[in-house]
């Protein structure tokens, strides 16, 4: 009986948890959780994030029909739960990681290998109620096999040739052609969630800002919004607008550099040089306006840490005028280089069906027909007052991902212009009230939807916090995108995805 039952209607049989804002949280028993998993097989409910606690499992879901969001929890005193990964492939690695960290066993999951735990930590299940002693020696990881005449393996990483983060890629190739790619991540797991347990608010904010350095604004913003929701705190309008300004500066800086870096991986180095200069202009403007090149720790719960001076706003307006001109020229250069287009068009295709199944957002989703953008859905201030386009392509190849980036830079330029024109006056922060509560923040980073969930104590300490990176739903698609391409196109595909290693590994 799969009728048109909405997410909230389905959850109404569960127990509503008090003090969870801005979206409701429901607690289900084992039977109702099982029914939820079965319903997820057909329902148009997107998995936003999934995480554990020593005796509870949580999942954040969004109903794509009426756009409701809810967090669903299931107490797991028996330290096991019916796995979502059976019906949502995007959850498989998350649930493997949940067992590694909290010791909650995902029942029914076909892939029972560890994910983040490489057998190197001083204890197993480090965040569970009873951490266990480690194995004698780190166990060998069993990669999935591919068989056939003339197949060979190419192991790559964790230390790569370029200046990039560590991760291992195992290629099965036949000659030049990739038959299967399998990723092995977790090398930069720093135990962020352990550090965020019972942490003072300022320390937690500092750690959250460093989950993924290139998305520091997005993480700080999502964390601040989660904390403010938990405490029922309203911040001044000027703080909302300054936050959006920072977020768009971060988006532009990352997109222009990625555009250059993708072209560089197709041996078109002049684009990287040009884009490197454009990025440098933006980060210098960040430093001049707010005092940090990457804007780390500028967004704090309660508002923003630094105000923008009228001279700063004027200088930025001037800078962006020239920036827009030079960016236009660079995109024209890309369009006029057939040898470059030959490398990007038709390379590394992600299909819309997979993008939807995994709920992949950001550039990866919008280049393959999934238009989701958290600035629109659920939306947050000041974007409801701003006019902006969300680009959408259907091809799903490297070229489409570049075009989405180029259009998003243009959209961000328009957003920044609107912000500078109508930036409200007033205070930039408010003191936080001393109350307990739970909250969730959802923010569109340059890579996609960043979700942060937090539980606050009355004295202002963070009891529990979970940061979710959009890369969780994008990394698996890279494995599919590279299939049938040549090994030499892997850097191109990988850079066009530009998933975060640090944000994923935490």
């Amino acid at each position, binding site marked *: 009986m799969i009728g048109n039952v909405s997410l909230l209607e389905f959850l109404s049989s569960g127990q509503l948890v008090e003090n969870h804002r801005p979206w409701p949280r429901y607690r289900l028993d084992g039977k109702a959780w099982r029914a939820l998993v079965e319903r997820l097989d057909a329902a148009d409910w997107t998995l936003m994030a999934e995480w554990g606690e020593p005796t509870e499992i949580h999942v954040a879901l969004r109903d794509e029909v009426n756009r409701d969001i809810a967090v669903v929890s299931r107490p797991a005193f028996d330290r096991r739960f019916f796995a979502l990964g059976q019906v949502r492939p995007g959850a498989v690695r998350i649930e493997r990681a949940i067992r590694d960290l909290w010791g909650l066993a995902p029942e029914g999951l076909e892939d029972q290998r560890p994910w983040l735990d490489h057998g190197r930590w001083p204890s197993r299940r*480090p965040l569970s109620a009873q951490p266990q002693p480690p194995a004698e020696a780190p166990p060998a990881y069993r990669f999935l096999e591919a068989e056939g005449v003339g197949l060979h393996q190419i192991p790559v990483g*964790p230390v790569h040739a370029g200046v*990039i983060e560590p991760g291992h890629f195992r290629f099965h190739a036949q000659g030049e052609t990739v038959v299967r790619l399998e990723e092995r991540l977790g090398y930069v797991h*720093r135990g962020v969630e352990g550090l965020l347990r019972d942490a003072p608010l300022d320390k937690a904010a500092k750690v959250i800002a460093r989950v993924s*350095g290139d998305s520091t604004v997005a993480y700080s913003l999502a964390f601040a919004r989660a904390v403010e929701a938990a405490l029922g705190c309203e911040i001044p309008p000027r703080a909302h607008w300054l936050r959006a300004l920072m977020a768009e500066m971060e988006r532009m800086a990352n997109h222009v550099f990625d555009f250059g870096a993708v072209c560089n991986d197709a041996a078109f180095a002049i684009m990287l040089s040009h884009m*490197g200069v454009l990025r*440098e202009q933006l980060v210098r403007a960040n430093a001049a306006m707010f005092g940090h090149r*990457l804007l780390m720790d500028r967004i704090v719960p309660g508002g923003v840490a630094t105000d923008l001076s009228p001279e700063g706003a004027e200088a930025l307006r001037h800078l962006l005028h020239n920036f827009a001109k030079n960016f236009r020229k660079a995109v024209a250069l890309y369009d006029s280089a057939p040898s470059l287009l030959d490398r990007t068009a038709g390379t590394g295709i992600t299909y819309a069906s997979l993008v939807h199944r995994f709920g992949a957002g950001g550039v990866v989703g919008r280049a393959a027909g999934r238009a989701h953008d958290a600035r629109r859905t659920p939306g947050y201030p000041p974007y409801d007052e701003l006019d902006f386009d969300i680009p959408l392509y259907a091809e799903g190849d490297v070229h489409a991902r570049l075009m989405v980036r180029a259009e998003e830079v243009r959209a961000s330029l328009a957003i920044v212009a609107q912000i500078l024109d109508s930036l409200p006056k007033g205070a930039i922060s408010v003191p936080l009230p001393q109350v307990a509560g739970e909250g969730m923040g959802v923010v569109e980073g340059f890579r996609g939807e960043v979700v942060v969930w937090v539980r606050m104590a009355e004295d202002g300490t963070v009891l529990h916090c979970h940061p979710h990176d959009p890369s969780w739903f994008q990394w698996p698609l890279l494995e599919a995108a590279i299939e049938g391409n040549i090994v030499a196109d892997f850097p191109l595909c990988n850079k066009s995805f530009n998933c975060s290693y640090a944000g994923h590994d935490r």
Partner: protein
Amino acid sequence: MISPILHFLFRHLIKGPHTMRERIAPDPDGLGELVAALERAARRRLGRSLSIRAVDSGSCNGCELEIHAVNNPVYDLERFGIRFVASPRHADVLLVTGPACCNMAEALARTYAATPAPKWVVAMGDCARDGGCFAGSYAILGGTDAVVPVDLHIPGCPPTPKQILSGLLALLDTAGR
């Protein structure tokens, strides 16, 4: 009509690279002087050649962004003969970012072992000093020196390109001694 690529190349022929203007009119923050000092030291100590291998042992990727920045045309590290190489076997210096994660310890130690002597290790960023804001976590061993011996530390979170240039200058002084 002039094709865009010709337009780009002409522009640089006529106006010069992005780097030039900064050297003519040094930044008030002293980048110009620093650049001159770096060039002198690099030539004297290492015959103008220093190869760096970057290793991320647990960074948030903020440090990597600034390493990319010192390689952009504005800072253009390579004009001093200092360049980033693809293999530790070609390197004089390991530039290590981030805390020493348990999961990266073996890879870091093996990268160090693969680097031919004489070799130096530069720990870049506050995390690489002592774990930074990740200190105390079950998943990290501490700073870079928990795994490999460190010759120099570049402070900052993340260090700015100027701090990186300044740190490499200090390393050239150390290396020449």
